[in-house]
């Protein structure tokens, strides 16, 4: 009896992360396993917590545009877009329609690159390296476009407060349309692969199911939620920027398993292709930037929401009339989706864990809002939110 008790308490824990080949970013997961079966899962985040929200309070409005862009390297444009939109509304500045169209164009190109990136990584987690290689090869066409258009492959820095930095020329238009045609053909092929390949379906069909109820309860966002039948997409629910002019159709699947998530993301790409063509063919004329954007923003507060490739990005910005924001609050979709991984993990095989994790398209850089400090003596010290906040305040007080 005693022996049994101790055996039960002693869990065999498999840590994934912070340095692990399945995760390109540091996050720490602990899966208690019984043989190969996962019985319990915990997550510890905070390795990438840099204190951006607090840091933003010590930078001026322009600098913050680039700081928030570096919250996440995959949806960099979306963060800058959300921030710029919020600040522009706060300053009551109307952005010229051409600039808005270009912003949405870059956002959709970014969505394609992000979904292709995710698709490749997910295939890699499943051990299907050929699919990974091919999808990343095709993704390079989009990266080339983005680099040619904006000057950088990842942090495009397309936005300035009150507009965008560059124009889309006829030459760009031609190359983008060509690339979109090519990508559409490839995406059809990939959709065929993920829905028919028997070996691949063994790893995706019926794995990690989150039904509609669970999705609502856990507050899942983005494509992960749409794969479970939740009709939630900011681009449709509350059209912003150029999406008012170029509406988009929502892609919803109901199965809620990994396969559905693959299908939703790939089908979303077709919508992106359609939208890009539409924007390029009906590009509004006009300026790229407003003449003069105020350096000081009048007092007030604003909420800005944008649909990132992973789900809804939410910004709260408050100004006290100075050159710097008084408060900047960011909520990213991965934060909301992370809970679903832990809920889904229990009862699955250890081999499915990387797939499940990647299924929500996690972005740890986005979601690290808490922190646990590990000092050099090796003892762990969990910091509460209060303590972290106090540390931030003290840090900046000391600096000034």
């Amino acid at each position, binding site marked *: 009896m005693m022996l049994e008790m101790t055996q039960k308490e002693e869990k065999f824990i498999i840590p994934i992360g*912070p*340095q*692990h*080949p399945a995760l*390109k*970013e*540091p996050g720490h997961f602990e899966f208690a396993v019984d043989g190969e079966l996962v019985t319990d899962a915990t997550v510890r985040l*905070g*390795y*990438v*917590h*840099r*204190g*951006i929200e*607090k*840091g933003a309070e*010590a930078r001026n409005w322009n600098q913050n545009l*680039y*700081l928030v862009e*570096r*919250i*996440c*390297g*995959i949806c*960099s444009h979306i963060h800058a877009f959300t921030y710029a939109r919020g600040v522009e509304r706060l300053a009551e500045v109307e952005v010229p329609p051409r600039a808005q169209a270009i912003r949405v164009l870059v956002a959709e190109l970014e969505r394609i690159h992000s979904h292709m*990136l995710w698709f*490749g*990584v997910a295939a890699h987690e499943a051990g299907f390296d050929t699919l*990974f*290689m*091919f999808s*990343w*090869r095709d993704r*390079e066409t989009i*990266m080339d476009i983005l*680099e040619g258009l904006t000057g*950088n*492959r*990842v*942090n495009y820095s397309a936005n300035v407060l009150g507009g965008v930095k560059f124009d889309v020329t006829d030459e760009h238009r031609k190359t983008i349309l060509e690339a979109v045609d090519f990508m559409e053909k490839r995406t059809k092929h990939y959709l065929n692969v993920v829905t028919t390949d028997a070996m691949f379906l063994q790893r995706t069909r019926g794995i990690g199911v989150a039904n509609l109820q669970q999705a609502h309860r856990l507050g899942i966002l983005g494509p992960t939620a749409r794969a479970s039948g939740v009709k939630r997409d900011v681009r449709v629910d509350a059209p912003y920027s150029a999406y008012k002019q170029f509406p988009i159709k929502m892609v919803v699947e109901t199965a809620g398993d990994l396969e559905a998530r693959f299908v939703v993301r790939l089908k979303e790409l077709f919508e992106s292709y359609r939208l890009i063509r539409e924007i390029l063919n009906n590009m509004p004329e006009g300026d790229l930037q407003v003449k003069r954007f105020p350096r000081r923003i009048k007092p007030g507060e604003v909420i800005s929401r944008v649909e990132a490739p992973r789900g809804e990005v939410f910004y709260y910005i408050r100004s006290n009339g100075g050159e710097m924001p008084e408060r900047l609050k960011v909520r990213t979709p991965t934060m909301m989706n992370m809970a679903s991984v832990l809920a889904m993990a229990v009862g699955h095989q250890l081999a499915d864990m990387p797939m499940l994790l990647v299924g929500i398209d996690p*972005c*740890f*850089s986005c979601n690290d809002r808490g*922190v*646990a*400090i*590990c*000092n*050099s*003596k*090796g003892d762990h*010290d969990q910091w509460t939110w209060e303590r972290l906040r106090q*540390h*931030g305040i003290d*840090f*900046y007080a000391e*600096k000034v």
Partner: protein
Amino acid sequence: MNITQEWNDILDKVKTWARVNSPWLIHYNSGSCNGCDIEILATLTPRYDAERLGVKLQGSPRHADVLVCTGPVTMQSRDRLQRIYDQMPDPKFVVAVGSCAISGGAFQGCYNVIGHIDEVIPVDAYIPGCPPRPEAIIDGLVKLLTAIKTGAPIQTEKPEELLDVV
């Protein structure tokens, strides 16, 4: 005596040749925005295919020769970075990819950022850029390998032990 000398020279040459032609990487993100991480991954994919230079991305620090770090060092990941570096077998090299890995970049002055990589572990090659293009990453790697091959001096001083944080 002479013969052993020559023999040793030849052995050294073979060793260096093997080392230069088979750099196995391990990658750690110590707090970056993962822009650099995906570019590192992109160097392995068909367009850039770093495997033609012998590069292989390894999962275990024990198998790796080159530690590729991205991002500024946050308070929490500092310890991990140190540990991964210690776990790697000699000879080992460190490459700092991206501006924040070299200097803190856009994140300098954020309260949870300790600083750059070479405040924690010695760095052998720096690749600036935000993020550097995959070609630039390959270029940085080639510069590191050339330095190893020619025996050019690379920074290997151990940085001063940082004060314990908290």
